[in-house]
């Protein structure tokens, strides 16, 4: 062990070197003036702040290079505040560094551990006190106390019960039913197949039933993306093909990974991309995952047209939309 060889010796704290302001009265005076100037700049900053707050119109804009068109009111307030604070800060630090004593001081340091005598005395007194309380002897009290303290903890946890409803089957259900018409979002207008050209994409929602009001919770499960391809471009089995209508295919817009809106459609490759984590789905193959972290295709909605020629759902989604969860089968 090289430690056992003699280490080099510690030469000790080097001699103190005086600063210019310590020995030269002119430098000292200059440092004092510099500090005063910094504090004065701070005061100017506050004046700028007050002026901006009271007299610069909140709607006035100025052009500043690099920043572009900038709101003069906000800029004046911000710059005023910044100057006021920085002036005080730099002034105080400059004062400390140039004019306050910079003689290094050595303080002793002691081990954290208490003296043995104190530790023994502490242990002895804890023992003595617990004997006074008689915890060791009175086991009946100890056990019932343990029981009651353990039980009383249940109440606050139980009180949290009304934080939310139980999930039940709600995650599996959407507002899509057999015969629900597809309506545009925004606009709530029914759609005919002819409204969509080949290559077009539209976001749709289920038509509201009379008296029904649409909430964000509904949209979070109901949002559907319509994409129109040429029928021959699909590579689907017979069942899935029957869920499309004249080349129009409908998928849940809610990502099967973490629930973002799968909003990016690339027309040339016919891929849907989720902007959150880049899960990529192939529209021609029933939204099969071809890249990224998602483990499942987007649920497909079976569609057809009603008597008036408007697009409608054949049936509800046959699986839960959105991200996975424990009970999802």
């Amino acid at each position: 062990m090289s430690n056992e060889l003699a280490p080099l010796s510690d030469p000790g704290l080097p001699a103190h070197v005086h600063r210019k302001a310590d020995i030269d009265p002119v430098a000292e005076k200059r440092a004092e003036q510099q500090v005063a100037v910094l504090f004065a700049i701070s005061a100017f900053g506050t004046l700028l702040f007050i002026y901006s707050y009271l007299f610069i119109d909140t709607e006035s804009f100025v052009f500043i290079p690099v920043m572009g068109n900038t709101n003069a009111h906000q800029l004046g307030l911000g710059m005023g505040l910044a100057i006021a604070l920085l002036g005080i800060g730099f002034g105080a630090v400059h004062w400390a560094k140039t004019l306050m004593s910079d003689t290094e001081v050595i303080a002793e340091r002691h081990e954290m551990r208490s003296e043995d005598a104190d530790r023994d005395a502490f242990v002895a007194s804890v023992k003595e006190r617990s004997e006074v309380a008689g915890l060791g002897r009175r086991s009946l009290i100890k056990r019932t106390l343990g029981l009651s303290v353990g039980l009383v903890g249940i109440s606050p946890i139980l009180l949290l019960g009304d934080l939310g409803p139980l999930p039940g089957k709600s995650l599996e259900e959407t507002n899509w039913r057999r015969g629900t018409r597809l309506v545009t979002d925004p606009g709530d207008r029914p759609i005919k197949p002819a409204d969509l050209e080949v290559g077009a994409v539209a976001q749709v929602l289920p038509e509201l039933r009379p008296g029904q009001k649409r909430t964000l919770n509904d949209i979070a499960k109901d949002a559907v993306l319509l994409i129109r391809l040429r029928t021959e471009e699909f590579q689907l089995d017979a069942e899935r093909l029957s869920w499309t209508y004249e080349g129009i295919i409908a998928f849940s817009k809610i990502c099967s990974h973490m629930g973002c809106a799968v909003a990016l459609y690339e027309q040339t490759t016919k891929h849907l991309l989720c902007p959150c984590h880049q899960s990529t789905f192939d529209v021609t193959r029933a939204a099969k995952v071809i890249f990224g972290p998602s483990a499942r295709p987007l649920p497909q909605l079976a569609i057809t047209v009603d008597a008036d020629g408007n697009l409608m759902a054949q049936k509800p989604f046959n699986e839960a939309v959105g991200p996975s969860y424990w009970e999802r089968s």
Partner: protein
Amino acid sequence: MSAKERVAGNVANYVDERTGSAKWLKKNLNKVFPDHWSFMLGEIALYSFVILLLSGTFLTFWFDPSMEHVVYKGSYQPLKDVEMSAAYASALNISFDVRGGLLMRQIHHWAALIFIAAIVVHLLRVFFTGAFRKPREFNWILGVGLLTLAIVEGFLGYSLPDDLLSGTGVRIAHAIIQAIPVVGTYLSFFAFGGAFPSEIFIPRIYVVHILLIPGIMLALITVHLMLVWYQKHTQYPGPGRTEKNVVGYPLMPVYMAKAGGFFFIVFGVTALLGATASINPLWLYGPYTPGQVTAGSQPDWYMGWLDGLVRMAPPWETYAFGYTISWNILIPALIVPGIIFTGMALYPFIESWITGDKREHHILDRPRNVPNRTALGAMSITFIIVSLINGGNDLIATHFDLSINQIMWGTRIGIIVLPPLAFVITKRICLSLQRADRELVLHGRETGRLVMLPHGEFVEVHEELTPEKKWLLTQHEQAAPIELELVDQAGVRNPKTFRAKLQARFSAANAEAVAKPTAQDLKQLENEHH
């Protein structure tokens, strides 16, 4: 005695007779703090926290944490008559119709970014210099806890305005909760008061953001600082500095002025950023609706690494007996961060087990003298940086015209290959630096002056180091590895053989070092020269 002094004396006397504070104050005003720029990193975190409390309080006066539907009637024309939540409308109101509101919002957001950045850099300083060693393990754990809380607090904070970007972040957080096996669905319904997004989530996280977490953080910060105070600050090695002393300046007046001034500087810089650098321009995103999303969705930087991990996760899910386990969410969002934060909290104990060192340490390490720890730190940083790069893969792809798939595959491989590589390289660099230190002490500094000797040989003149510099380069300890004792002196087999072997192996790897020069080495060199 002047009138001023008499008044001051009276006040001091009045307070002391009721609190006995004179003795305590006398001692603590003379408290010595060592001086080093890296000790200001924790200060930046502390001051940012104060700025957050001040600016945050201002924002609460106008922010309405409600998801009630309103129609926007404020002065921002592009969103006029748009339906949105009251939370988003009030965030717009703060930005456009409260004088100084936008400035305060931007100061608050910048301060949050600086706060967490300062915590991370402070943590790295503490890690690389070994300041977490005995007796400071508690403070290390408090620090890890504060970092965790700060990240959660930051996430909740930028989720509050209920704009399209932040709502997308909440959607992802919701999916993470929901992915927890067995209880996830229930937890998410309890947290959100029903299915996503519900109408009660913003008010709930508001109370957590402005009261619960800041309250806990304030308490932890207080304990953190009290421990720093009580245990006295660590110091960097140098002449005259020992494990038994603290060399520095007294609290009054030097540190009061420096630290007080520094608070104003941090606040001033934050105000400057708030005044000139736009951050989270939420009016551009529009109100949240689950059916829409902004392209290039990015979380704040301290969540970016998590998002990057989630993006690069392989598409694994298990379906069995009618239940689903989403490994593609669990591994990157819960298991890996769990391992990282637990490992971080336990690190002081792991290191002390490996080195077998149970003594107090107040002199900081130079990172090169502890190659394994330094390499481990570099490895962790590499891991986070690779994740962070993948968290911005979409922006990198569009800015540098790259394929997003290639970046993703690059980081998927990189996250496994690069951290160990960083470990090996860093360890080698540390050992090389040790060798360089040894050369410096033994042979002095290369002056670049070439001298021709009388017989024609050219030599470069080396200048001997000062005793102070020599001491700095050789003051560290070089501990020998722990000897493996499979059988004790009485011939009894060590019952903990596996643990002992593991410890001996780690310890041997940890003790790898270039021998530092000793007094004998120097003496021998001297004899050779004469």
